[in-house]
C-alpha cells in the first residue's frame, strides 16, 4: 500500500483536477471514505488555486510541490510554492453575509480550508511558502 505521494504541479489551474483525482485514488487505496478524501481535496483545491491565481500568476518559473501522507488516522499534506511570501492563515476571512445581490465569494475558499482542516501550519523557508495541513479521517 502506498501511504505517501509526492507530486510536482504545473502552474496551471487544470492541475487541480489531477490533484483531486490522485487523492481519490490514494484514498481508495488507503481505505479512506470517498467523502473524506474529497473534503481534503477541497482544501488543496482552494490553496492551489490561490497560489496559481495570485502568488504565481504570470510566472514562468513558478514551482509547486505537494506531498500527501496517510498516517495515524490522519490525512496530511505539505504544499510548497516559490511565490511571494503569503501566509494564508493570517489572511482575513470574513464571515459569509449578504443576500444574492451583495454577496461576494472572495475569501470563501480560505474559510472552507480553515473549517475543514484540523491543523494548519505555515512557514516561509528558502524562498518557499510551506503550508502543512492535517485532517483526522472519520469513519464512513
Amino acid at each position, binding site marked *: 500500500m502506498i501511504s505517501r505521494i509526492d507530486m510536482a504541479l504545473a502552474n496551471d*489551474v*487544470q*492541475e*487541480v*483536477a489531477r490533484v*483531486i483525482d490522485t487523492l481519490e485514488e490514494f484514498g481508495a487505496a488507503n481505505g479512506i471514505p*470517498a*467523502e473524506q478524501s*474529497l*473534503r481534503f*481535496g*477541497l482544501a488543496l*483545491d*482552494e490553496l*492551489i*488555486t490561490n497560489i496559481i491565481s495570485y502568488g504565481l500568476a504570470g510566472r514562468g518559473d513558478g514551482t509547486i510541490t505537494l506531498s500527501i501522507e496517510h498516517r495515524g488516522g490522519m490525512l496530511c499534506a505539505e504544499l510548497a510554492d516559490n511565490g511571494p511570501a503569503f501566509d494564508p492563515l493570517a489572511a482575513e476571512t470574513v464571515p*459569509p*453575509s449578504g*443576500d*444574492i*445581490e451583495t*454577496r461576494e*465569494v472572495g475569501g*470563501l*475558499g480560505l*474559510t*472552507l480550508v480553515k*473549517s475543514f482542516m484540523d491543523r494548519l501550519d505555515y512557514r516561509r523557508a528558502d524562498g518557499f511558502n510551506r503550508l502543512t495541513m492535517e485532517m483526522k479521517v472519520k469513519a464512513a
Partner: protein
Amino acid sequence: MTSLNHEIVNGALVLKPSRRIDSSSAKAFEDDAAALLDKGPKKVVIDATDLDYISSAGLRVILTTAKKAKSAGGGLTIACAKNNVKEVLAVSGFDNIFGLHDSVAQAISALA
C-alpha cells in the same frame, strides 16, 4: 470533467452537474449555464444528485448564474445535495441564500 446535463421542467431550467465543480471545471459550468439561460428560462434549479464536490470556484459560478436568473425576473435554488456539498453550502451560507430542497419538484415549486 463536469458534463452539464440539463432539462426544462415546467419552464424551469434544471442543471444537473456531475462529479465535481472545482477550479478547473467551474468556467465551463458558468459558460454552459449562461448559454442555456440566454435561451429564455428564468428559473434555475441546480439538481445536485450526481454532484460529489463543489469548491469556492463552484460557489462563485452558482452565484453568477443566480444573479443572471434574478436580473431576468426569476431565481435559483438547489435540490438533492449530498452531505459533502451540503457542508460547503452551509459553511458559505449559500444554503440560506438559495434554499436546499429534497427533490427537484419541491425546488421548482419554491421558485414559483
